[in-house]
Every structure is written in structure tokens, then in C-alpha cells.
């Protein structure tokens, strides 16, 4: 991944969305370990899947799109 090192060239517009950056890694390393906490661990593929499940469940609640969601884990 290469980024322009000149502050004037780099900007918000030149960078893909975070989901896109994440998916690139998922496509390339789906089986690689992404997160380990306590006894639980997830590969990039599993993390992608599980985060999508949670996102869908939150969207299904139908609350306004700019309303924050709190995470307590």
C-alpha cells in the first residue's frame, strides 16, 4: 500500500473507504488470524462474516441512520 507522502497531495478523497481497505485484506488473507482475545479468536474471513451479522441486526432495528450505537465489550 502506498500513500502520497506529501501532505498537499494526500487527502480524504484519495483514500478508499475503510470497508474497502478491510475487504482487500479479507480477500487476500481470509484464513489469517485477525483477532484473539481470551480463548476466542477469529480469522479475517470470520471477522468479516460476524461483523456483517452484527451490522445487519443493528440496521434491522430501524433507528435513524445518524443515531450512534454503543459497543460495550
Amino acid at each position, binding site marked *: 500500500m502506498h500513500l502520497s*507522502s506529501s501532505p498537499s497531495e494526500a487527502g*480524504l478523497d484519495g*483514500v478508499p473507504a475503510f470497508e474497502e481497505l478491510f475487504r482487500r*485484506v479479507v480477500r487476500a*488473507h481470509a484464513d489469517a488470524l485477525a483477532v484473539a482475545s481470551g480463548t476466542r479468536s477469529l480469522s479475517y474471513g470470520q471477522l468479516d462474516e460476524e461483523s456483517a*451479522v*452484527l451490522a445487519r441486526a443493528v440496521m434491522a432495528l430501524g433507528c435513524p441512520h445518524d443515531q*450512534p*450505537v*454503543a459497543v460495550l465489550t
Partner: protein
Amino acid sequence: MRPVVVLDPAMPVDRLATILELSGATTVLADRANEVVGRDIGRAHSTVLLVEEMLAERSDSVAVEVSAPDPAWAAAILFTSGSSGRPKGVVWSRGLIAFDAMATAERLHLRTGDRVAMPLPISFAAGLLVVVAALVSGASLHLRDPRRVGSRDFLRWTASERATLLPTTPSLLRGLVRAMEEGEVLADLRVVSACGEPLFSRDVNSVRPHLSRDCLIVGWFGSSEGGSLAFIDYAGNDELPDGAIPAGTANLGRTLAVWDGDDKPVASGTAGSVVVISRITASGYWRDPARTNERFTALADGTTLLRTGDIGQLDDSGCLRLLGRSEAAIKIGGYFVDPSEIEAALLALDSVAEAVVVAVTEDLAARLVAYVVPAQGSRTPSVAQLRASIAAKLPGWMVPTHIVLLPTLPRNERGKVDRAQLPHVSARQVEPLLTVMEEEIASVWRGVLAMDEVGRFDDFLSLGGDSLAVEEMLIRVEALTGVAVSTSDFTEAPVLGEFAQRVEAARDSGRRTSTVTVTLRHGDGHNDGGPAVICIAGAGESAIAFLPLAALLPESFSVVAFQARGFEGRAVAEWSLERMARRRARSIRQLQPAGPHILVGHSMGAILAVRIAQLLESDGAEVSLVVLIDPFVNETAVGRSRRARRRRQERSRGERPSDEVGWRALLLKAKVTLVLPFAGVLQFRPGRQQVLFFHQGTLISHWHRPTPWAGRTLAYRTRDNMDPIGVWEWLLPGEHQVRDFACDHHSVVRDPYIGVIAADILDELAMIAGNSASAPTRSPSSGAAS
């Protein structure tokens, strides 16, 4: 696209609830371990979704696709300390997160396959950035909270996970280094970063021996408002600057500048305000346009000007060096703290009348000192209690390291608090714990004192423990270690390391001490008959109630205290005040045969002190001073006969007796009286034990008939004291001084009132010494001649 608010379960529930409310979130995603907290903070108006249940109910529906998300949309809200006494939310856009995920990954040298040991909370900027940077790099995140598991465990785990990257804060790094054994090397680490507060060359030097030669140390400067702002790298052999490590050179996409008071750039090497000019900053404060406009300014070219609040200087190569803060908000352990938020939390307590919190900065590292004036209407809080109350509401780094109780705050002529006049508090070095017993004792001390860290050279009382805290600590130590620890074990060794040795010695010998006499301090002059102060505890009061007094007297003084028999350990309680007085007088004669004696008594102990003084004097010993702290003289038989006389007079005038005791109070008294014969023989829980002895004491005083004491006396009364002044004048026909305190009966033996009493005692003793020195020597022969 809903912004996420990451809540740190390690934070107090009150604060989480405040953050949730300020964010406006009505949905909380919680795992099972945090379900209860989630429901608690959500109160009635939010839904708690269980992550485990959501994952179990997954269906194979379509993937989430959002059409052309706008980079300006809010993605996360980070809550930090705010000046209005409430946390403030900093809004991070999708654009900022995506950009800084990549930029931070690059500057932290993250690579695919890196294993990141992650100790930082994700609810803050640095933690969130490490997570996103790792996830766009193909690295793995290994999460473990050293606040929960301790430094030692965290280090073992870091080694066993073969972590290659370790992001830290300087204070966390110092804690880890302290816990490392000599020769211990975390050989797999490639990069150790530190962010959030100044990193010093000595920090780098102290961690280097525990890293491989190739490991890079990266200084990382950033903020919630600006994201990652600057970085600096030190390879294993790089020479280090004197003192603090610079913040470094600007992150991608950022221009760092140093401005003067007129917003003009200053020459390189000159100090000024640090500003960031960039298209990549936070979007502002959540639902707070006024505050946003104060700090963020949109410039004509589409960039944003952000005032960081830091003072710094740039060198010719564009390397930024930070010199301090330009505003009230300071950084503690890497977190922004606004002292006014802590003041607000203190002032919300009933027991606090006034509070000022200042940050004392030494070597660029700040610590918080709170100055508190107790409220007069309620029981004066101990420092440990204050700390516990604050810790229930604020995160650990906002709890002041030092809390100083003052009778009043120093103010200047305009009535503002004169900060220069506030007493200085010196920094505390936390010395690492060595033995298992020290670790065990430390765990108890941390709990009782509500402190994050205690070291082996720490003194329990200097950390804010009062007599009640000592009692609680001793009980908990006994419960944890199974060793019966006496008050003397503690008072003779109030420093953690020594105390741990005492407990160990007690465990090994299996001894059990039960004492009435507790040596609070062996004075320097102990062996050559130096001054000794004898303290007599009140009913239901432990001898350690006098520790604050002992601490205030000069070191040449020995201080010994008496407590009720059976207070510690089993013994038949004493039932006659006269018998108690005779026993104490005998013990005192053994301790210090000739005197001169200085007696200090509190509550029933003061009544006892008068009687002991009389016994000592009739026995030929000299009593130089008696100090009576809030005795209820009228509760003794003397008061009873006076009251009976008055009641007879009132009745004879046909009036209702003015101080008739209600039947309810009598019934209560009767209830306690039922268990009283067992006081001391059966050991009750500490609170009940005190109540029992208190009632036993009041009953004993009730039957005791004091006689006037003509010796030199200092006497103190609190607002709980209902004695008519006449009864005191009757009791003290000699030279005496009576002072009134607007506090309660129990608080009077503690800070700040005990300070006044100690000063009075020293004045009085100096006067006595002066008189005897200046008075013409009366030898027996000259006496005979006159």
C-alpha cells in the same frame, strides 16, 4: 451508517451512563460478560443487544452494501474529559478513520502477519487507531487488558503470543519495565510505540535491555481532535536526546506549525502554540457547535485549522518538540483531564464544601492534587473515602494522586483561590513489590484506598488511610492471609514492605497478640526518657484513631495509645471506668515511671484521662498536660445528678422536663444492652464491634462520677457536644483553654482538626518548658531558707 461509541467496561458505571446519554445512542451492543452493566447504564430508554445471541441467530441474508458512503459521515465518537464537568464527544469521520488507519499503519511499520499485543483501551483515539491500522495491514490483534491482569501476567502473555508489535503509553511502559526481571527479553518485538504523554530518554534506556537490538521504539503524538499527528523512530543504537523525546515529524496529510499570540508563525526554535493545518482532522465535538468553533476553524482552501492547546517548538528539519500545555486541560497517563471535571465530582459529595484540583507538572509529567475543605454539616471524610467516592464516578486516571484536607482554602484579596499558597505535595515513587506477601498486602491496600498502584515504600496513612481504613485493611489482610494481625503490627510498621514482613513473621510464629496498649511510635528520645504522649481512645474506638496525632508530633516524642480491652482479640471487656483508669495508670507507671506525663483522651477516653491523671498525681508522678477531646461530661453521673436537680426544679414549677429521653431511644438502647455482656468475648464484625464498645462505654461513663481536675488542661468541643459550659468549668477549676470545632464528635481526631490540636499541644509544651527554664531554680535549701 451509524457512528459507533466504544464504551470501556473498566470505567465506572456512572460515567458510562453519562457518555451513553450524551451520545444519544439507544442501542447498546454488549457481550454476555457486560450485559448487566449494559442494562444498568442504558436505564429505561435503550435496548441492549447481546452479541452472542445476535451471532447465534444469524441468517444467510444478503451482505451489507452501502451505496457511495460519504467520507464526511460520522463513524465514531470518542469521549474525553470536558471542562464543563461532563465528558465531551469528538467526532471521527469515515474519511479520518480510513486515512489514519493507513497512515498510522505505515508510521508504526505494521506489516501483514505482524502480531500486535494490544493493551490500550479501544474507547480512545490511540487504541481505535491501532485496531483499524492492524486490520488494514493484515496483522493480528491480540487483546489483553493489563489493568485487569497485572503487568507480570501481561508480559508473560506478550512473550507467549510472540507479539511483534506493542503499542503502549509511557506510564504503561514504565509499569511493564518495573515488572520485568533482569535479563528478561521480549525477543519477538519489532516495534514498541508510546503515545499519549511525554516519553523520556530514560524510559527508552530502561526498556532497551529488554528488547532485541533490532527493535524500533516509536514515539507517537496525536490527539482525539487531530488523529495521528507526528511520529519519531529510534533504532536500537540511535543516540537519544537529553530529557524528553521530541514529538517528531508530521504525519502524512498534516502540516504542523507553531504560532505566536497573533496567529503568526514563529521562527524555528522559538516556542509557541502548536496548530495543525490539514484536511484530515476530527469533524468537531458531538452536538456542540460552539465548542467546535472554538477549536476547529475551516480555512478557505478546504483545510481545517486545529488548535491543539500544546506549547512547542519546531526545529529546522520540521521536528516538533513539545514543551507543555497552554490551557487548563492537562494529560495524565496519556488521557486528557480537565481539573474542573474532578472539582465538579468532588463538590457533588455532601461531605465536601470546597475543592480545588491542580495539576503539578514535574519533568513534563503531570499528577493531580486535590485540595478539599470538608463540609461542616456532615462527617468529615477521610482521604481514602474521598478517593473511593471519586473512583466510583470517574475513570482511574482522573482520581487525584494526592488529596489534601484543609480547614479553608487560601484566597487572595479578590477572593480567588490563591494557588501559590496551596501546600506543596511531593511526588511519590512507586517502588516495585518483591515478595508474594507484599503483592497480597498491596492488593488489599489498593482496594481499601481505592488506588491503582501502591509500592513497597508506601505508608498506609500517607496514602490517605484513616483509622477506619486501617481496621478494614487489617480485617481484609486477616481474611486473605489467614494471619491474625494486631494493630501494633501495623502501627509499628505502617510501610507496606515492613508490614508484609510483620505479617509473615506472625504467620510463621502462629502467635496471636491481643493488646490494650498500642505503641504508635517509638520516639527518638525514647531511651533517654524523651517526651511520651499517652493517648486514651474513646469507647468503641481503636487506638489507631490517634495515628494522625502521632504523625503530627515531633519525632522525639513516643506516642502510646490505649484502647478498650477485648477490642482486638478475645478478652472480657472492662465494666468499670474506675477499674480501667487504675489499670491504665499502672501500665503508664511501668512504661514511664516518673513522668512528666502528657495525657490525651477522646470521648470517654477523655473522662478516663482525667481520672488517670488524678491517680498518677496521687501516686507522686508528674502530669504536665491533659488534653480532653470532646468528652460528654454531662453524660456521666455528674450530669445525671445535675439534670435530676434541674428536672425536680422544672417539675416543681409545673413544666415538662426539657430533656426527657423518648421511649424509642430507650428501646434501642435496651436492644444493644442485651448483647453488651458479650462485648469482647464474642468477636463481631468490625462495625458492630465498634457499636458495642461505644454503648458499653456510654454505659460505663453513665455510672462514673468524675471529680474536678485542677491541672493544666486543653479542652476541645465539637458541635455534637451538648454539655452546658458550666459543667466543664466545674470539672476544670485549674488553668485551661476550651476551643470549639464545627465538626462532629468522630471527625475531631482527624485531619484537618487534629492539626490544630497538635499545634496547641506543642505550643503548650513549649510554654511549660519555657516557664520551667526561666523560673528561678528552687533548690530545697533555698526553699527552706525563705
